[in-house]
């Protein structure tokens, strides 16, 4: 019993950022800040976390799949900026009605599966590029205003976003080793 409680406590400490996020969502859905809502929010997030950890997913997924809150905030801000810049770029194409659409195959430097998925979704979210297929770290991207044949095909990837993810992946590898 005692070892079980210890393992539970370790789980809670490991996932404190997820706990904070879940309790915040609970509070926002209730729309009031009282002792009852805070305590019930924390209890239900712990229950959800332990259920997911012990029953739905086996193994230490949180060590490789948890993106810290700071990285998340920085990434979201950078993503908004990229989306707006790309949106401005696309407007002349809409007005003139010209479109030169191509499918381009390119590779990312990232190796972690979840991070590649996040990058692919960000590529889809920016106007002018849509990811069609992903195999390992090779992405097929449908692009407007594609780079010419002699240029680098990696120009369709938003490189600054990849940079943030790459830095996170390096810190992850350092933690494991």
């Amino acid at each position: 019993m005692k070892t079980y409680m210890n393992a539970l406590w370790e789980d809670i400490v490991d996932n404190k950022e997820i706990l904070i996020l879940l309790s915040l969502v609970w509070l926002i859905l209730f729309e009031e800040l009282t002792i009852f809502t805070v305590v019930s929010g924390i209890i239900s997030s712990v229950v959800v976390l332990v259920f997911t950890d012990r029953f739905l997913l086996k193994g230490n997924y949180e060590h490789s799949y948890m993106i810290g809150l700071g990285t998340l905030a920085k990434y979201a801000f950078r993503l908004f900026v990229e989306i707006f810049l790309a949106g401005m770029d696309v407007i002349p194409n809409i007005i003139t009605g010209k479109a030169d659409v191509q499918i381009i195959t390119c590779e990312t430097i990232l190796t972690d599966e979840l991070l590649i998925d996040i990058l692919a979704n960000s590529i889809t979210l920016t106007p002018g590029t849509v990811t069609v297929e992903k195999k390992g770290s090779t992405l097929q991207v449908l692009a407007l205003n594609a780079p010419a044949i002699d240029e680098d095909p990696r120009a369709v990837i938003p490189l600054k976003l990849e940079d943030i993810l790459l830095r996170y992946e390096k810190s992850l590898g350092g933690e494991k080793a």
Partner: protein
Amino acid sequence: MAHVIEWIANIVIIIGLIFMALGVFGIFRFKDYFSRILITAKVDTVGFITIMLGLIIKHGFDFFSGKIILVLALYIITNPIATHAITRSAHISGYRIKKER
């Protein structure tokens, strides 16, 4: 001061409306499906995000803004998956364009 913030929020919402209108205009402008989804749906997403940011600026920091942030987060997570699913379904079912490399 409150008036200034409200006017800034209104201007941001109007910019978002212009983006959304451009997206709807583009859906009738282009001839084939791939250029439609590349330009139209995504410009529409920019308009959505801009309007929601304008509403958050207008309401300040309270539970209403928190709920709008929840809606925004849900939309940002689900929208690229839906777009990707449609495009992949078109690609696999054999909708092709001339150039590919």
